[in-house]
């Protein structure tokens, strides 16, 4: 466009002056008659369109004005050779213009209808953010044109400020076949009709929705012009899609709440209460304070977080005040005993009945369930602390029941993910006695026993109380804080594992921390019940011993040549500020850290032990014999006919032989008597 032939300029300027006058005439007529009139309007619109829509970056006016003047210029050049049909040239110049607008083509009106050259001098600054109002006084109003079509009445809002600029400027969206091929007719009337047809086609609503291509393009271009992204051509497709989706999924009314975000807001409301109570406290502590207030708690500590499939568990370790909890325990025990007695009573009755109908009953199996190992009392061993869990901060805390040895033993044999709901049944082999709540408690107990550590010297044993023998060789099970603890330097804590000790009791294979002989209990049962044979069949059980309390970590067993703990400095760059951190390799997720006189343990993980080998589920036991094998339960084949006959013959023979003997004896006796 810029390289117009210089000689054309003179003719162009002459033409332009002519055109100016005609443009003014046109303006007058058009402002009075808002309806669609002639090609002049079209051309004006077209040219305005060419002026109006700027390229994506600044300096819009000038090149466009040059273009538009180029149009008349080229038209002028066309005009100069002669007033021949202008189809040829415009078509040639189409490729020159590249992606110039369709309307630019359409704007190629014959030279008698001049281009509104009055728009050309407008500077680029006017085409920054759209300022239609400034131009409105000078320009035609396409609005009436557009609003005259019924399709667009609801579109006023989406057009927004672009009253002047025709969004159909970007001809690249248009079907390329439209312009050049149809542009055959030189007369304005048919061309005007063509424009109308084109527009009507564009306004046709799509089959799938109420949107027409015209409206969609309007929206798309509006969005692009509003947002002014970099390199819009590259993201064209994405924007296209986004606009389509926006149309279909309208944003919700601002007056109504977004239903999807409700849970978030509720959550936030609940958590806000936590924060209001004190300034500068962490969420967890606030949570625990709430817990503390609801329950008679003496000591409370955040134990950690166990991840689950659907929800996670936040665990708090709590120690109740003396005497508070005992009542609940007693009730529970009474219930258990009552149930036990009831069972025993029924057992006795059945036994009596059995004696009567002994012949008809099938033989009873000899398997007796192994004796139940009693659980540890509260505040001792594995049940030293009480644990509360909640799913998310803000939700109520749930108390977990005490753990029984059977649960711990079983928990060692299975490996299951937690789902996040406490009442999920655990489907496994060997069958776990309890729901997820008990499994969770058992895992917490195992993790605590394995990974609660403190720096050496922080805790010390209480005063010497009696001999160790009284406690059955299980070691001391109580400790207290050492008031003289000075703190171990961080470097030493990291270097040597001997500086850390366990302060929770190790859980024995039996499932308890202190060993209990299961045989003793069964003797009591014998007194109540009838069956006395059991004592003979019980096996000897060995006493189990575990490492005593406060053993250093250096004594921990290795896992297949793998060190059980890894110690690190939290900040190797500045060791004077760093914290000694130690993490467990046996229970991934268990951490302990210490600095100066403070230390803490925490667990965040899935709640499973680490093992290098794959998990092998326990195999089911061998099939047991159903009953005692004895002659009365032994199956024997019935004798066949031959055997019976043979037996009969043998019996007769024996009988005959016996009679002969008797006769002989009688004869002998008679002979003796005769003598």
């Amino acid at each position, binding site marked *: 466009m810029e390289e117009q032939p210089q000689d054309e300029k003179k003719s162009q300027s002459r033409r332009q002056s002519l055109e100016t006058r005609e443009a003014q005439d046109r303006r007058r007529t058009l402002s009075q008659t808002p309806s669609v009139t002639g090609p002049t309007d079209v051309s004006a619109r077209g040219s305005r369109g060419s002026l109006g829509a700027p390229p994506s970056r600044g300096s819009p006016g000038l090149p466009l004005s040059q273009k538009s003047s180029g149009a008349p210029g080229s038209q002028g050049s066309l005009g100069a050779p002669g007033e021949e049909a202008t189809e040829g040239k415009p078509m040639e110049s189409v490729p020159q213009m590249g992606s110039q607008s369709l309307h630019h083509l359409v704007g190629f009106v014959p030279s008698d209808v001049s281009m509104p050259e009055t728009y050309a001098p407008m500077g680029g600054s006017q085409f920054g953010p759209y300022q239609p109002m400034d131009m409105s006084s000078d320009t035609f109003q396409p609005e009436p044109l557009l609003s005259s079509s019924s399709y667009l009445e609801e579109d006023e809002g989406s057009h927004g400020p672009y009253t002047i600029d025709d969004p159909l400027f970007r001809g690249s969206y248009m079907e390329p076949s439209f312009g050049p091929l149809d542009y055959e007719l030189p007369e304005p009337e048919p061309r005007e009709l063509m424009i109308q047809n084109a527009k009507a086609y564009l306004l046709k609503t799509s089959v799938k929705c109420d949107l027409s291509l015209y409206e969609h393009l309007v929206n798309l271009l509006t969005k692009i012009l509003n947002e002014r992204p970099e390199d819009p051509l590259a993201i064209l497709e994405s924007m296209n899609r*986004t606009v389509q989706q926006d149309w279909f999924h309208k944003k919700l009314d601002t007056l109504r709440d977004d239903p999807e975000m409700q849970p978030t*807001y509720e959550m936030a409301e609940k958590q806000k209460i936590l924060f209001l109570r004190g300034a500068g406290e962490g969420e967890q502590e606030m949570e625990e304070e709430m817990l503390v207030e609801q329950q008679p708690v003496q000591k409370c500590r955040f134990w950690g977080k166990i*991840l689950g499939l659907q929800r996670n568990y936040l665990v708090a370790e709590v120690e109740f005040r003396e005497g508070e909890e005992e009542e609940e325990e007693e009730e529970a025990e009474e219930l258990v005993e009552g149930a036990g007695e009831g069972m025993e009573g029924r057992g006795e009755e059945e036994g009596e009945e059995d004696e009567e109908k002994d012949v008809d009953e099938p033989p009873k199996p000899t398997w007796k369930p192994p004796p139940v190992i009693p659980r540890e009392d509260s505040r001792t061993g594995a049940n030293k602390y009480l644990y509360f869990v909640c799913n998310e901060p803000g939700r109520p805390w749930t108390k977990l029941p005490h753990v029984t040895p059977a649960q711990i033993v079983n928990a060692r044999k299975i490996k299951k993910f937690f789902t996040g709901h406490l009442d999920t049944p655990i489907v496994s082999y060997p069958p776990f006695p309890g729901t997820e709540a008990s499994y969770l408690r058992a895992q917490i107990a195992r993790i605590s026993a394995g990974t609660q550590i403190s720096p050496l010297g922080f805790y010390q044993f209480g005063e010497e109380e009696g001999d160790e023998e009284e406690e059955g060789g299980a070691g001391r099970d109580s400790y207290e804080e050492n008031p003289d603890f000075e703190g171990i330097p961080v470097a030493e804590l990291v270097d040597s594992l001997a500086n850390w000790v366990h302060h929770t009791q190790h859980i024995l294979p039996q499932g308890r921390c202190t060993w209990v002989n299961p045989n003793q209990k069964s003797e009591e049962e014998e007194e109540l019940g009838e069956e006395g044979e059991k004592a003979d069949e019980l096996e000897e059980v060995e006493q189990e011993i575990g490492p005593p309390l406060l053993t250093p970590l250096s004594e921990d067993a290795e896992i297949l040549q793998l060190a059980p703990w*890894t110690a690190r400095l939290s900040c190797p760059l*500045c060791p004077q500020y760093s914290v000694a951190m130690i993490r467990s390799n046996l229970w991934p*997720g268990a951490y302990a850290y210490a600095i100066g006189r403070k230390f803490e343990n925490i667990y965040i993980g899935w709640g499973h032990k680490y093992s290098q080998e794959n998990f092998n589920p326990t195999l089911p036991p061998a099939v047991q014999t159903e009953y005692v094998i004895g002659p009365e339960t032994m199956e024997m084949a019935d004798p066949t006919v031959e055997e019976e006959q043979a037996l009969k013959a043998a019996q007769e023979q024996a009988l005959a032989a016996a009679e002969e003997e008797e006769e002989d004896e009688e004869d002998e006796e008679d002979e003796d008597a005769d003598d």
Partner: protein
Amino acid sequence: MDSESLLLSLELASGSGQGLSPDRRASLLTSLLLVKRDYRYERVLFWGRILGLVADYYIAQGLGEDQLGERKSLYSLNCMEWSLLPPATEEMAAQTAVVKGRFMGDPSHEYEHIEMQRMTEGDRTYEDEVVIQIKEESRLVSVIDQIDKAVAIIPRGALFKTPFGPVHVNRTFEGLTLADSKKLSSYFHFVEPVELKNKSLLEKADLDPSLDFMDSLEHDIPKGSWSIQMERGNALVVLRSLLWPGLTFYHAPRTKNHGYIYVGTGEKNIDLPFML
């Protein structure tokens, strides 16, 4: 996760309990920037951290123009100096499959694996024990590769494919809707598709070729190997892989924030079927 939004991403992914101390974060911010400049990557992702016994590996990945193209992995022991890792090959994968256990933390550490091999000498064939040395570096490379192929995920719509081939970041991605973010089908594996061509034509008819060009998580085996959770009410969706425990993917619905990070021991959870 993108190194551009490192701090925010670390916050969002911290629900799994793994984080970085402040000094590491600070060093990562600077060093990843330098890596981007030196190697001329388009994007640098902080991939995660593999915990070793003696030291931890910090892994970063650099991407070129094509998001699905070749990825270069770098590792560092102190978050400042990064070394390029060799690309993963099939032989490496086969070789390191026999190594079990934790990573040591020393890249030059060699695992010894004893294998019975048949040797022929003349007419006799006998079996001999051969000790094969496997370097920890190769193990690291193949583990990163396996994790990427198995569990690196990206939400639907975050990338789009151009007809010319390369895959670009979708700058108009506004995030998944809340309903979509709870479904497994809205997440794709961030790797060349494997299952896609096996889909029936009927299924493919509903797909959009510019957005749905990767495998979705729906048909992962074993079923249920992903845990989807919403945190903070509905403001954050977190996916955790159960097959490679330690991989956490987070996404804030209706925003552009998304990313994944792996912090773990680098071992696959083969017991998964027992645990579900």
